[in-house]
């Protein structure tokens, strides 16, 4: 689905400047003071570019310190299709595991946000572009089922530009049905799903769990959509409008509740949790 267009969107590594006090913003390319970037939770003070961050940083930013307990661990992707192309899926998985220290592209668990008990999860765009295969689908689904059982809100931060993971073929596609069906049951049970969309969330992930929040927030300027911009450009053979498929574009077209900068996200989520209390019995 959204694969093709993402080949070219590489996440450039933060370039260390001499002395280590300054860094170059990959977006505006200005030299910025590192401390300033950190204070903004990895956001460029010059251009508001939101740097890519890991799931662990995400947890640290949003979940109350010391409250996160990971669940649904020990799940490992296999290679059911024996998908060997330019690179074998097995090798790609191994490389991603090494790079990120993660088992797969998402982490889920229980924790508190501003004192509210929640089930929290996040996908990591550094792991095969946050794409959803069997493991991500399973972990997400277990998290939703746990939130249903515990009758607590579910907060998920998606950074899944890879969409449904091609290497697991139609099994990945069907994770869209699995995750969405779980969210359907959670909804029936009176659950509250807060979705926070980050750069990028595309294809099969956007066309399933990421689009189904009761309240949906997005980081500024995140690329969010169904088809990749490259695919669309090739199909319509014309240039795409400025800001196409960015958070602000989706807000304008009515698909987001809010665009929220990183420093305000926890507070905004906490306010939503405060307003929407899950009833104790259905």
């Amino acid at each position, binding site marked *: *689905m959204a*694969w*093709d267009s993402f*080949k070219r969107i590489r996440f450039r590594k933060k370039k260390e400047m001499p002395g280590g006090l300054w860094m170059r913003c990959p977006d505006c390319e200005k030299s910025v003071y590192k401390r300033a970037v950190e204070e903004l939770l990895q956001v460029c003070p010059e251009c508001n570019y939101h740097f890519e961050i890991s799931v662990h940083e995400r947890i640290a930013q949003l979940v109350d310190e010391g409250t996160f307990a990971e669940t649904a661990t*020990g*799940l*490992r*992707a*296999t290679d*059911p299709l024996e998908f060997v*192309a330019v690179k074998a899926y097995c090798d790609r998985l191994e490389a991603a595991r090494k790079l990120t220290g993660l088992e797969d592209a998402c982490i889920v668990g229980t924790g508190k946000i501003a004192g509210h008990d929640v089930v929290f999860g996040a996908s990591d765009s550094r792991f095969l572009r946050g794409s959803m295969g*069997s*493991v991500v689908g*399973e972990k997400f*689904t*277990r998290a939703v089922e746990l939130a249903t059982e515990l009758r607590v809100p579910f907060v998920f931060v998606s950074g899944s530009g890879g969409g*449904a993971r*091609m290497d*697991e*073929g*139609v*099994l*990945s*596609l*069907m*994770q*869209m*049905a*699995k995750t*969405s*069906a*779980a*969210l*359907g*049951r959670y*909804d*029936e049970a009176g659950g509250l799903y807060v979705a926070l969309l980050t750069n990028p969330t595309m*294809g*099969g992930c*956007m*066309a*399933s*769990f*990421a*689009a*189904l929040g009761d309240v949906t927030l997005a980081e500024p300027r995140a690329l969010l*959509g*169904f*088809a*990749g911009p490259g*695919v*669309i450009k090739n*199909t*319509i053979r014309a240039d*795409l*409008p400025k800001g*196409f498929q960015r958070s602000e*574009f989706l807000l304008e*077209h009515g*698909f987001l509740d809010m665009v929220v900068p990183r420093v305000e996200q926890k507070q905004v989520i906490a306010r939503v949790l405060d307003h929407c209390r899950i009833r104790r019995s259905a």
Partner: protein
Amino acid sequence: MADNGTDMDFEGPILELRRKIEELESFAESTEMDLRGQIEQLRQRCRELQREVVAKLTPWQRVQLARHPARPVFSDYLVQVFDDPLELHGDQAFGDDAAIYTGFAKFRGRSVLVVGHRKGKNTKERIACNFGSAQPEGYRKALLKMKLAEKFRLPILTFIDTPGAYPGVGAEERGQAHAIARNILEMSRLRTPIVCLVIGEGGSGGALGIGVGDRVLMLENAYYSVISPEGCSSILWKTAEQAPRAAAILKLTAQDLHGFGIVDQIVPEPLGGAHQAPGEACRNAADAIAEHLDQIVGTADERLLEQRYEKVRRIGVFLEGGAASAAASSNGAGRAVAPGATTR
């Protein structure tokens, strides 16, 4: 034969033999010679050849069959499988997408809601239905009518045949991803029986957008994939020309899907493909739908929804806690029922 790049080389020897049979028939007629024996022999040989060809079809050749210009499309099934179709238009929000048909009909005496991707049978029709690539309003129309069907407990029958949901600027502006996601979620909990049949192309999210049901059936030469072989080829090899290779590694045939436990039944096609005998293909499809519908009609809502949830819930292959993983592979070649079902 070659239409929009379809390469049906494997049909060549069969067509050649057919020509010979026809020649012999007209020769026999004009000369009043009794060649019935020879003709019957050739016919027999032709059937064998078709069987051989079908047995050796590569995934890419099946993709070609699924896209064959003479393959029966939704409108053929609508005419041949149903009585009294009554089309319902529009999504009550933006427009009426011709790429998805929705309407009431009688199926073997029973009122049903029919939903199907529409591809058209000639260039004019194909353009009008955007070659089966639906816009968000198509998915929203389908959902609106499916909710109507739920209200009156009409079974829903969906016919899937799309290269994919349309990748356009307007489609994104109107929330293609949201429309598909919403359909998937709602179909998983509609309180009425749903049978889905993939009749040609099961193009990714665009297919799944009308593809969640109590039963998912697939025609023998249809395909169902997370991405088109061409798209996959472009990503992996930076060219669309490796599509045949991509088709093979994507495991997208009806046989693969059945092996993964995603498809409940493979609906047989006439020898050589559905286009060889469209009437027979439609009859086979109708019989299969009827069989499955009979099994689920009358099931209590809660049980129906529980079973529908379990059907998608168990899809996936992964290892859990090291050895427990074997559950996935010990089911036999390609069987991909998740260990999730046993470990939860």
